């Protein structure tokens, strides 16, 4: 039996526009996604901002009701049996918030230990264990308001696993954390699997998903557009080529013409100070450097490079596909 199961899960939000003539709009945040996560697996939900990752996770942890479809965690339906689900899961999200700033880390953990049913006799030992695990031992009596972003995030993780949940949901846990801190956090997440947890991780960092996840579902505009192991996803773009061209002032019209070229699968533009980096993914069957440069005629062009596609390219190809 899968530990987490989502079957044709949908969630629609209602919003309004206008002041005098108010108009109601339905926004489909999640459009029928299905996936399952097995015991001991680290499963990644990968997608750009607004793709529906957080909405999906919030339905799975019982914070939101699905508009339709079904979801089960450890066999318990998230709509009919939220209390049983809540007892068995841990939820960690990224960012500065979610902690009581005026309390010490120890008091924060003591509070949540009580709320999540850690018995009084075990609380001190368990709090010491998780503080040790996240590397905050010795700093637990300081107020959280003096903590760095990385320390707060480690405290978030400590809080999420305090009651020893079987399943841990991590919603963009490394967002805004510096590279060294993020690397430590990723190690911590990997360690959760070694102690037998099942983890569902949402992120929009490709390398993070690649480094951590056993399997990944790529989500875009509320739908799963690709699913598999990192190697399988990379295989989707195997044989292709990526051409990177530094340009100065490329417009939408030219980009449209490049997209229309035979063999081009995806085109993205990264803004880099004065210049832009044009990234063109192709099928690899044809050499497209010359046709690309021809389309850029009249535009100042800098460095041109061609390389093998990475997992990030596979991801971009999936989320930008029409």
């Amino acid at each position, binding site marked *: 039996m899968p530990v987490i199961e989502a079957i044709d899960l949908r*969630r629609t*939000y*209602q919003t309004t526009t206008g002041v005098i003539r108010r108009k109601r709009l339905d926004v489909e*945040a999640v459009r029928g996604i299905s996936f399952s996560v097995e015991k001991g697996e680290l499963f990644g939900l990968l997608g750009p901002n607004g793709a529906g990752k957080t*909405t999906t996770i*919030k339905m799975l*942890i*019982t*914070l*939101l*009701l699905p508009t339709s479809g079904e979801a089960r965690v450890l066999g318990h339906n998230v709509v009919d049996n939220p*209390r049983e689900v*809540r*007892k068995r*899961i841990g*939820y960690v*999200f990224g*960012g*500065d*918030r*979610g*902690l*009581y*700033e*005026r*309390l010490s880390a120890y*008091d924060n953990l*003591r*509070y*949540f230990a*009580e*709320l*999540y*049913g850690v018995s*009084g006799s075990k609380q001190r030992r368990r709090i010491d264990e998780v503080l040790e695990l996240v590397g905050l031992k010795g700093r637990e009596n300081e107020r959280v308001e003096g903590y760095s972003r990385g320390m707060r995030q480690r405290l978030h993780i400590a*809080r999420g696993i305090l009651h020893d949940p079987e399943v841990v949901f991590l919603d963009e846990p490394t967002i805004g954390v510096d590279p060294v801190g993020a690397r430590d956090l990723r190690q911590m997440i990997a360690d959760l699997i070694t102690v037998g947890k099942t983890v569902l991780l949402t992120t929009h960092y490709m390398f993070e998903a690649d480094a951590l996840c056993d399997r990944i579902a790529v989500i875009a505009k509320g739908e799963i557009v690709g699913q598999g192991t990192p190697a399988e996803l990379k295989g989707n773009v195997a044989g292709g080529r990526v051409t990177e061209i530094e340009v100065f002032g490329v417009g939408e019209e030219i980009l449209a013409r490049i997209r229309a070229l035979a063999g081009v699968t995806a085109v993205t533009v990264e803004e880099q100070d004065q210049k832009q980096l044009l990234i063109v993914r192709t099928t690899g069957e044809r050499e497209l450097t010359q046709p690309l440069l021809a389309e850029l005629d009249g535009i100042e062009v800098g460095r041109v490079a061609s390389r093998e596609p990475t997992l990030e390219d596979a991801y971009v190809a999936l989320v930008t596909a029409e």
Partner: protein
Amino acid sequence: MMRSLRVLGLAWLLHVKMMSRSAFDGLMAVIWPLFYATVAFFMFRTGHGSSSLGPIGLAAAVMGIWTAVSVPASSALQRERWFGTLELLVVAPRNLGLILLPITLAASTIGLYCVAGTLIWARVLFGIHLTIIHPLFFALGLIATVLTIASLGFLMAVSFVGSRRAWAIGAALEYPIWLVCGFLVPVSLLPGWAHPISWALGPTWGMRTIREAAYGGAPLGPLLLTLALAGVYLGIGVVVLRIVLDSARKRATLSLA
């Protein structure tokens, strides 16, 4: 049952700790009740002479408790939302009411300071010596008043959660409650239509208990009514909270989206 009491106790302790650690809030908590008490003392001394200042001292003390609770209670859920902790509290396998009640209880406890502060202020500055006839009932009356104000605050907290201006509603209710609960003027002086509102409010009976205990009346009846109304507010609050939470999960409000 023991677990629920533990949650209540620890949550109350930690919220008192948090509330007492803000220098600004602390300063306000010290100054405001004394300011209110001073205004009330001057008004009544001018109008009635110094003989009526004892009851006014008591009234100013209870006004302080209500002042300490009204705004923090009405915006309690919003504050948790700003902290980013609301979702974590909702997703905890506990009754959310059990988690929220200690917040208003803590605010109410902080308000207890107002009683001590106001009475000391009254003695030092205005020479009011208060002799309490039934000290036990006086203490019970204070505890019951704290409980009923905390419960009323809990009901406000869950009722105003949908409003972005919850704190403003709490602030707007501050003076009307002083008036309608008979803190400064007797309820009997209010228009007839306001009497049922006064009777339905726990602080009215809490105030009456404290007065009766201080001046040797019959405090038991109002004491029981104060506690009963605290129970009624809690019951209604729990039902409202259930409705609010169900709605929040359906409509993705409460920052649950």
